[in-house]
Each structure stands twice: as structure tokens, then as C-alpha cells.
């Protein structure tokens, strides 16, 4: 674990209902700076709903979400992104008709210093700003070994590379907290291992805190500092991988009650 124990994300009693369905109830969790936290649970447990609350896709019905000591509950997604939380999606959401490079450039948009006005009139500021964005985007693509495919249309990438591009794009926004929604879904064991090594590496390199949803147990157990377990909208356990593995509640949630 990282030396600093300052809390980056603090969720207090967050609930979310859709009509009569309570998708999340009274979820409280915290993530310290530099941690890699796993979020697991059976299908329909509310993992993605929690991600959606954290990134502002919808506001929490009740409860508080603090990012870096600032309340972000109910903020619009783009604002939360500016505050330092970037995510990937379970079902990949790339800008498929745009090039790989353009996809990453979008995430740099918020840091662009050239105005609409200077772009429309092609003032020197525009060229400087665009060059800067291109440069930074290429740097990110190099890390993900996608640089030589930068002019390829994103939709034409292989499945694994689309997943990697989505992470690259999230990283380009310059987040403190990176939320990965099943990044290894659909990958074979080799690809998964490479991806996990990459995630571990960017975590060090970019000084990131990561929250990871994953179904592959061995993978989660292997890399995470701590794990939270959700079941039917309720947080049923948290602790180190060893603690989680031996937690009877978790075993019950996954395998059903003992007869």
C-alpha cells in the first residue's frame, strides 16, 4: 500500500432507487490515495450502479459522495471527470467512427487552452494548442502500444485493443481516481495477465488510485489491496483478499446458502 493514507473517495450511506427497486442501499466505503480496490459481487448486485453514482450518470437518491474532500454527489459527469475521476465502461463505449488518436484527444479537451474563437480564426494559439494535444495523446498511445494504429478507426481495432484504448482514453483525462468496469471481460487468460501488469504499471507511473470491478476472482484476489463485496445492493463484506476468501457471507452470496 502507498505511504499516504489520505482518503481520496469517501462514500457515506449512498442509496439509489429506480421506482420501487432499490438498486443500492446505504453503501458506505472509502478508498485511500494510491490503493487498488476491487469491487465484486454476483450479477445484478449493483456494481455498475455504484460506478454510475460515482461518475454522475445519475445522482444518489440519498447519501454523500466525497471526492478529495469535495461533495460530488449529483454533479454532472463531465464535472466529476474534471474533478479527477475517470472511468471505462462494461460495454465498451468508444467513439467508433473516430480515429484512435482522436479518441484520446477528446479526453484532453478539458485541458485545451485555445478558445473556440481562436480555432475558428486559426490563430497561432489554435495551432499551438492542437499540437500540444496531439503530442500528449501520442505519448499516452505509446504507453499502450497503440501508437502505430493511431490513424486507425477505433471501431476497427481488435476487441482487446478496444478495451486498452478505453483505458488509455480514461487515463488521458488526467484522473486521480480511475474506475475500471470489468476491463478484462472477454479477454483470454494471456491478455488478462498482460492487462493486469499494465494496470499495475500505470498505477505506479501516474500515481493513480484504482477501483476495479471484475468477475475473475483469481485476478481480483491477486492484485487488489482491499476488496468490497456487493450483493443485491448491500455491501456485505470488505477486507483483504484473504479475509474475503474466507468470509462465509461472501461464499454464501456466490455459491448459495448451505442446505
Amino acid at each position: 500500500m502507498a505511504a499516504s493514507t489520505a482518503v481520496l473517495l469517501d462514500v457515506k450511506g449512498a442509496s439509489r432507487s429506480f421506482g420501487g427497486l432499490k438498486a443500492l442501499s446505504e453503501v458506505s466505503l472509502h478508498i485511500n490515495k494510491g490503493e487498488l480496490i476491487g469491487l465484486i459481487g454476483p450479477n445484478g448486485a449493483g456494481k455498475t450502479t455504484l460506478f454510475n453514482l460515482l461518475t454522475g450518470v445519475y445522482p444518489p437518491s440519498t447519501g454523500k459522495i466525497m471526492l478529495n474532500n469535495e461533495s460530488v454527489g449529483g454533479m454532472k459527469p463531465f464535472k466529476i471527470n474534471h474533478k479527477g475521476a475517470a472511468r471505462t465502461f462494461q460495454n465498451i463505449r468508444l467513439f467508433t467512427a473516430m480515429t484512435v488518436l482522436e479518441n484520446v484527444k477528446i479526453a484532453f479537451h478539458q485541458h485545451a487552452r485555445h478558445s473556440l474563437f481562436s480555432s475558428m480564426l486559426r490563430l497561432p494559439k489554435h495551432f499551438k494548442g492542437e499540437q500540444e494535444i496531439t503530442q500528449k495523446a501520442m505519448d499516452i498511445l505509446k504507453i499502450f502500444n497503440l501508437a502505430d494504429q493511431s490513424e486507425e478507426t477505433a471501431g476497427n481495432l481488435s476487441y482487446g485493443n478496444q478495451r486498452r484504448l478505453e483505458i488509455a482514453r480514461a487515463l488521458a483525462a488526467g484522473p486521480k481516481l480511475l474506475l475500471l468496469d470489468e476491463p478484462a471481460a472477454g479477454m483470454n487468460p494471456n491478455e488478462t495477465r498482460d492487462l493486469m501488469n499494465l494496470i499495475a504499471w500505470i498505477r505506479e507511473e501516474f500515481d493513480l488510485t484504482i477501483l476495479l470491478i471484475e468477475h475473475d476472482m483469481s485476478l481480483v484476489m491477486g492484485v487488489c489491496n482491499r476488496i468490497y463485496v456487493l450483493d443485491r445492493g448491500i455491501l456485505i463484506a470488505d477486507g483483504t483478499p484473504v479475509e474475503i476468501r474466507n468470509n462465509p457471507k461472501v461464499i454464501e452470496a456466490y455459491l448459495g446458502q448451505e442446505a
Partner: protein
Amino acid sequence: MKNMNKKFWMGIILALAFYGIVQVLLTTGIFNDVTRSMLLLIGVNVMLAVSLNLINGITGQFSIGHAGFMSVGAYTSAILTLDYDVPFILAIIIGGIVAAIFGVLIGMPTLRLNGDYLAIATLGFGEIIRIVLLNTEYVGGASGLSGIPAKSTWTIIFFFTLFTVVLINNFIRSTHGRACLAIRENEIAAEAMGINTTMYKVIAFTIGALFAGMAGGLSAHTFYVITPGSFNFLKSFEILVMVVLGGLGSTAGSIVGAVFVTLLYTYLREFPEWRMIIYSIVLIMMMIFRPSGLLGKTKINFGKLGKKEAKANGSIDSSTP
């Protein structure tokens, strides 16, 4: 970066050459009045199509109220030149700005809507403007405004059109234009990547309205008369046809579409009842054989081929996406 600049200036030079040739043909009388008014109409239609493409093709917001913005610009500038003796160019620009203000006012509430709902809302807006004009005595009601000075010359329309294409194209090819494209591609992801999607939709809508308003003002000062009827739903539809024919999302396509539709319009002038039928047939054929439009996603690279393509475009051009 330098390469991009080179392409840009290549386009400008070709456009200016085109302007010069037409200007000579007009002054020597080789082009008659019919051809002249067709050229003016092409310019106006290119402005309309390129500005609508920014909203529909680039940002992916399906708007069919473009004639509404056009009429706001047309009436504003006509009133300014008729009643207040405002200099012509200034009147056109003010007309555009007033249309842009309408763009903001209409955009803010309606851009929360998606797809069909937005289309219906913008259609409603266009009709409301028309009905209001129809019932306002000050602007002549159903008979409209007449005696508008015919100050739109080839030179003025050409440079306004060039200006429109260059500015909108510059917008599209910047980080701001990419933000709009991202909204079209995946709105949820764009928002999650830090794009203020509401703001960029309103920006696209406003810029589109600005240039549609200017196009309206120029057309009012070409044809002496404007009536509410000339800005009805069919006009909005006609602009949409130009954009779809040329290829949604392609500036060059919008230009080609505008030229094509204007030629069709001019040569079918004798048979107005056939016009809509032919539009429809052309559209159906297009959807069957080339659903992405005439130019679709092809990019024109002036550095490489240039001249041939520019000729096909018939009108001004620039480094297009």
C-alpha cells in the same frame, strides 16, 4: 501541421480562382441572368447546408427547423435595410446574430431531447416562427416584405459563403469540433470524458443558426421579396435533403449536395409539381445505393488530387473533413 496549412491555402486559392473565372464570365455577359441568380442561390444554399451539417451531421442532433433561423435572419436584415437604412453588410451580420440568439433560446430547452423528439421540437419551432410572421402586420403578414434592395451580388455572396465554409470547417477540425463529433458518436462517453455536452450542443446549434440567418439575409437581398411561405417546412426539408444527399457529416458533401439540389431546382423550375417527386426519388435511390451520401466519409485532399474534385464541387471549397 504545415501540411494541413498547405491544404488549407490550396483550397482557398482554388476557391478564389473559381470566383475570378465566374466574375469574368458574368461581367462579359457570357453568363446570363438565369445563370447569375442560380449562382447566387447556390451560394446561399451552400451556407445553409454547411451550417445544418454542423448540427445534424457533426453533432448528430437531428434538427429540421433550419428555415426558421433563415427567416429570422431574412426578416431582420430586410427590416434593417428597408426601414432603418442600416448598411447592407452590417444588416446581414445583425440578421445572423439575431438568428443565433434564437438558436441559443431554442437550443437550451430542446437539446435535452433526443432523436425524433428533437426533430419534432425543431419542426415546431420553424412553424411557430412562420405563423408569427404570417400574423404580424409590421412585416407584411402573408404578403411579406417587398422592395428589398437587391444588394446581394456574386462577389458578396461568394465571400460570405467562403467565410462560412472556412469558419465552420475550422471549427470542425479543432478540439471543439471533435467534442461535437464525440457527442454524435457516444454522448454518455463524451460526457464521462469531460465534455460539457449540453454546452457543445448549444454551441453547434448557435453557430448553425448564425450562418443560416446570414444566408437568409443574403437571399432576402437577392430576390426583392420575402414571404413567410418561402420559409416553410418544405424549405427546411430541402436543406436537409442537400445535407443527406452530400453525406451527413461531410462539409464537402454538403457543398456538393447544395449545388446538386440547386441545379435540380433551377432546371425543374418549369415543372414545380415534379420537383418534390424527383427529390424523393433521388433520396430513395441514394439510400439504397449509397446510404452514406455522395461523398460520405471520403476526405478531399488538395495536396494530392485537388483540381478534379474541386471542379466536381462546382463551388468554393477548402480543406474539408
